């Protein structure tokens, strides 16, 4: 040890420099086109799919990418056509988009805003992508949406659930098919009342970033309107892996419900920790202690294993929807069949939203008769459609948010197989989750006007 030529300062300094070097973003030169950004000139049109291919959401990102590939196949007339046959708009005929074959490039968001912007920028400037879609995080969606607005391309958001995406951070060039935190809360509240009653005391653990804040605000407001009391709202660092020190005080706080406003790995770990601390077996205020996770996905349910059993949450879509709730959700079975035949397992809600977004973009271009982003915006605004698996849906012009039914789910106690992890408890109709454009939870930003770029 005494012979070592290392110094503490040297090691620390070198480590810092090495880390900074690895994190350097990539800057790429800009390329402009006339008329509007990346106007397609040949016989192909390029779409950019920006999904997490590394990092904690890589599996969800890969599922999105599978859905995008399937959508491109169907647009180009390959495969079984998937939801093209059930989609209420009939302008897509399997010959690409306006006769141009659809090609795509993909980028890796890494679920980091700067990396996502860099990869979107590269796809726009280097590969000529005319539309960007995908993503598994609201922080990333807001960042990429802003970039697309500046660059003059359309952004068809993937999985993003923060109110801010179509609230204070909404942009004219951005569109969201996925539901949001307000809708989750509005859909969950009546079910929570039915299951757990009106006299409850809730303790919130919330991921400390844009999605967590809006999820906490939404679910707290909805449950307080039922008569529930909010005992405590505790913010947890996004980088947390062990939530024991946040969960340990819950039982002694007077609360009888724990609301986990966590997503992805955060949720898997916090739920696992909560079950380890025996919360689900305890009684508080003379009632069974309950845990609520306002938003969770199939992959999260898989990660949480048996801990998800009995946990109530909400989803944008579920692959069993048409079988269990009927023809209103037409398109679901066509998509599940198409996806399942190709990949061997049912699609996730992230995959469904990405597939639908690609078709909706292609349809809007075709109906508009132009790839010009401003024409596409006009075609999508206040567009009413059906047959994409969610029932009748409206793309509202005032904020570019889709309005459709919301599904309330519960983790299955005894799943029959690895794909059958949640059961559909309720489908909350659209009118119960609809809110005015100027709702306070969505205020603070302006849609602005579309930017065609170039």
């Amino acid at each position, binding site marked *: *040890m*005494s*012979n*070592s*030529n*290392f*110094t*503490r300062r*040297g*090691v620390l300094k*070198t*480590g810092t*420099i*090495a880390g900074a070097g*690895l994190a350097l973003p990539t800057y790429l030169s800009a390329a402009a086109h006339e008329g509007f950004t990346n106007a397609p000139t040949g016989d192909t049109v390029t779409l950019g799919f920006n999904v997490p291919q*590394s*990092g*904690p*959401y*890589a*599996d969800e990102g890969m599922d999105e990418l599978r859905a995008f590939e399937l959508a491109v196949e169907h647009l180009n007339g390959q495969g079984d056509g998937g939801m093209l046959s059930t989609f209420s708009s009939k302008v897509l005929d399997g010959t690409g988009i306006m006769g141009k074959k659809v090609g795509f490039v993909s980028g890796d968001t890494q679920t980091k805003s700067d990396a996502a912007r860099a990869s979107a920028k590269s796809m726009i400037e280097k590969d000529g992508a005319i539309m960007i879609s995908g993503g598994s995080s609201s922080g990333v969606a807001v960042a990429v949406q802003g970039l697309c607005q500046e660059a003059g391309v359309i952004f068809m958001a993937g999985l993003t659930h923060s109110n801010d995406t179509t609230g204070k951070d909404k942009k004219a060039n951005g569109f969201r098919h996925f539901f949001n935190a307000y809708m989750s809360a509005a859909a969950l509240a009546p079910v929570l009342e039915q299951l757990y009653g009106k006299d409850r005391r809730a303790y919130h653990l919330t991921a400390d970033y844009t999605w967590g804040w809006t999820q906490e605000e939404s679910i707290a407001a909805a449950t307080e309107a039922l008569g529930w009391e909010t005992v*405590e709202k*505790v913010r947890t*660092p996004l*980088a947390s*892996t*062990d939530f*024991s*020190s*946040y969960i*340990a*005080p819950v*039982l*002694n706080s007077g609360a009888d419900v724990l609301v986990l406003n966590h997503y992805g*790995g955060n949720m*898997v*770990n916090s739920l*696992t*920790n909560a079950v*380890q*601390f*025996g919360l689900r*077996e*305890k009684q*508080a205020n003379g009632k069974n202690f309950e845990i609520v996770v306002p938003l969770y996905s199939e*992959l999260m349910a*898989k*990660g*949480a*294993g*048996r801990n998800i059993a009995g946990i109530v949450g909400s989803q944008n879509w579920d*692959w069993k929807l048409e079988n269990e709730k009927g023809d209103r959700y037409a398109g679901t079975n066509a998509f*599940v*069949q198409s996806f*399942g*035949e190709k990949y061997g*397992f049912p699609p996730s809600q992230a995959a469904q939203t990405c597939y639908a977004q690609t078709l909706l973009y292609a349809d809007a271009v075709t109906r508009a008769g132009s790839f010009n982003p401003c024409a596409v915006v006009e075609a999508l605004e206040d567009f009413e459609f059906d047959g994409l698996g969610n029932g009748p849906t409206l793309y509202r012009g005032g904020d570019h948010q889709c309005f459709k039914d919301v599904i309330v789910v519960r983790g299955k106690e005894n799943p*029959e*197989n690895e*794909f059958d992890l949640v059961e559909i408890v309720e489908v909350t109709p659209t009118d119960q989750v609809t809110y005015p454009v100027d709702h306070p939870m969505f205020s603070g930003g302006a849609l602005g006007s579309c930017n065609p770029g170039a």
Partner: protein
Amino acid sequence: MDQIILQFLNGLDKGSAYALIALGLTLIFGTLGVVNFAHGALFMIGAFCAVTVQRILTLSTVVEDPTKTDFLGNPSKISTPYVESWFGPETGAALIDWSVPLAIVFAIPIMVVLGFIMERGLIKHFYKRPHADQILVTFGLAIVLQEVIKAFYGANPIPTGAPEVFRGSFDFGVLIGFDPNAIIYPYWRMVYFAFAAVIIGAVFAFLQFTTFGMVVRAGMADRETVGLLGINIDRRFTIMFGIAAAVAGLAGVMYAPINSPNYHMGMDFLVLSFVVVVVGGMGSLPGAVLAGFLLGILEAFASMNEVKAIFPGIDQIIIYVVAIIIILIRPRGLMGRKGVMEE
């Protein structure tokens, strides 16, 4: 008072993980003089040893069930684990239930061999290279190991449960006169703390009471003189690398039921463990253990609502704040030797 006891207990199990990883990290630094940025990856691989054993024990025969259909309308499949077919349903189910403790036996040789391969195959070529090269190569190795695990197991966390008998929690508060539910603590975290104490004790006993350990300690103090006595200190240090890898791996195996393993978990612990080593005193084994528990407990206290109300966000930075203070006051770290790493 109950909250203080509760957070102290929380700090102990967090500290156990920090101490076990930091112990291996400082052992490698003390012997080979290498800051091993791949050490967190060894912890992660340990956790995936538990996943692998679970998967091996649940390998199944699959038969079609014509009475049910899968999501595509094809006949669904019924899986029966081989261990249940071979040893009977009860014994087979018990083996699967105890997959994490069983994984300890599986993980030790895997981790020791992996440690040898890492040291002999890559790291030894960088002993005489600058600090930057060593850090970059071990960090690069960590990324490669991560990606290999991701390629095999995916990015999603994989639930790996503790044996049924250790699930749930113990009402510790009732034992010491508090109200029911005041101090609840999970059984498996108690097991983890006890396991960490045994491993730490075993490593210290090995170094303190065996001839091999004595030579290693002598080599850590003065490598050249030990070499001049005709002892092949390099070989012993390589073995210590293997032991350090096994310690990190065992920490990972037993951590698997606490948080579902994912390919990135090593990186989550690496930076904190590095800070623990610096605070404890680089190369100091007792320092690593002391700093591991100290920082784990401080982190738990910092996440108390009462503390956060006074210092918002303190839970995110407490470890780094304490590290800065300790390094400013005592640059060699808590138990670092005078003159070592003080420049």
